[in-house]
């Protein structure tokens, strides 16, 4: 597991995570503090990246936006993983009716395009992170279930699971001590994948005004509003674009790295 982070993407990711989590502790200006007189101010000592159309500090807003993107995506992915993997593992081990039911339910969820599902939720419950996180989690549950289920099916067909049964191990022990450790690889990969997709979805929604609500900063929203002010201050658009691209790039690279690490072709050693 540790070797997952020993790569360029892993290091960059760790850096981004560090910024995100300790962000509020840094000596940055308040992201919400307006200073309309100084709108579009250029880089200065107090505002290293300049100020936006309301005079708010750009750098601070970027850091906070990054943070909320990660918290929302990470949170949604976590919830999604817990539910999805549990369902998938039970379906794969117990089989029978529970398997059939679970798979059908997941198929139904998959019929809804994720963005539209979030929009429906936003219509009913109002926009904002409290609607966003649960719906995002729901949207990705089927993918976790499928990966978990498929992995469990592969593993349980292996003789070593039968051997463990013959030792007199209980079903619980088999699931937790024998099967689960052998399926973490693909699940890890899926987790990182879901985080990336969540970041992208969340930013898209914020772009439309349906994600994180103003005045809280979010990358998508910042891009959306900066479109109209491009002529005056191009940097207001380019900075969040760049941040978002870098974030997604690093996450994608990490995801690829994980996928290579856990490629079943490597598992058999030499």
């Amino acid at each position, binding site marked *: 597991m540790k070797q997952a982070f020993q790569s360029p993407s892993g290091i960059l990711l760790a850096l981004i995570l560090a910024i995100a989590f300790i962000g509020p502790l840094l000596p940055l200006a308040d992201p919400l503090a307006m200073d309309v007189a100084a709108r579009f101010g250029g880089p200065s000592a107090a505002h290293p990246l300049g100020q936006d159309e309301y005079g708010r500090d750009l750098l601070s807003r970027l850091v906070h936006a990054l943070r909320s993107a990660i918290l929302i995506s990470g949170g949604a992915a976590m919830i999604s993983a817990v539910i999805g993997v549990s369902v998938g593992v039970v379906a794969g081990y117990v089989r029978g009716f529970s398997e059939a039911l679970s798979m059908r339910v997941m198929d*139904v969820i998959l019929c*809804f395009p994720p963005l539209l599902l979030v929009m429906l939720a936003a219509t*009913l419950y109002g926009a904002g992170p409290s609607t966003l996180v649960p719906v995002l989690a729901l949207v990705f549950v089927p993918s976790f279930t499928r990966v978990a289920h498929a992995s469990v099916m592969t593993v349980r067909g292996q003789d070593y699971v039968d051997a463990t049964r013959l030792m007199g191990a209980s079903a619980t022990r088999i699931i937790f001590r024998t099967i689960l450790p052998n399926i973490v690889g693909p699940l890890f990969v899926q987790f990182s994948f879901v985080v990336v997709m969540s970041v992208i*979805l969340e930013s*898209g929604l914020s*772009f*439309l005004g349906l994600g994180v609500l103003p005045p809280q900063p979010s990358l998508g929203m910042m891009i959306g509003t900066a*479109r109209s002010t491009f*002529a005056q201050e191009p940097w207001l658009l380019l900075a969040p674009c760049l941040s978002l691209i870098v974030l997604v790039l690093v996450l*994608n690279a990490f995801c690829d790295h994980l996928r290579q690490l856990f490629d079943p072709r490597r598992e058999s050693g030499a």
Partner: protein
Amino acid sequence: MGWFVRRLAQSLVMLWVVVSLVFLSIHFVPGDPAELLLAQDGGSPDPLMVQMLREQLGLDRPLPEQYSHNVMGILRGDLGASMVDGSSVGQEVMRRLPRTLELIAAAGILSLLIGIPAGVLSALRPRGRFSRGAAVVAGTAQSMPVFVLGTLLVVLFAQVLGWLPAGGFVPFSRDPGKHLQLLVLPAATIAIGLSAIVFRITRTSMLDVLPLDFIRTARAKGVPARRVIIRHALRNALMPVITVFALQLGGLLAGTVLVETVFNWPGLSGMLVAGVNARDYPVVTGVLVVVSAFYIGLNLLVDIIYGITDPRVRK
């Protein structure tokens, strides 16, 4: 044949479930749905308005009656009326849908034309320069959320270079040239990301197929390399590509919504975003039902294609 009927039946059942769930979704809210919809930040809405809304949406009638009324309506093509201006949701969807489809089709075709050949070439020489270059380009393309890419493209081509218009729409019948000109950027925006995905999955799939035993058999028979690649390898490698492509279409619809917003392309997105902002429930659900139906239909189509190309599925 039996397999086909089963698959069709499955899709119809799925569609019915989706429609039912969408219908029921309004009842999954805490408290009274109509109140929730009218709630503005803070105070409770006017009880009279709530009552009017309830009648308008049919929420005052018993549940089974609401359900059958809705389903019957959908079968007739009636998706309800907008809460905001009472216009027919169905009509508006039909007006806008072809434009969205046009975008998706253009982007889809483009991405297959670029992605598949690139993927095959890359798999043939996995460590060559083309491969590595293409991998970098694809990786970058996939890392750009579609609205970011769109925004940057607009900025580059419209504002900085002035080569293409910034957005808008002109019907094909009125001015074909302008119509196509306006189609380029939005379609390209979607196609770039989609091509990257198609490229990767084609490459991976080909790399999986090329070392397989039957390829070795074909070569041992003296079958010329070109035919081995196309008739033997690609034919088998395309199947996962089709599957993934179909899976992407769900996300594609989402991406289209964003791209339409960036380029002011009057497809479903405008209607949808306005609907969400106004909490116009019938509009949002109407679009959702149509889009989901499309998605289910597309998956069915993909499965059928799969069944035709892979004889093992049919037994």
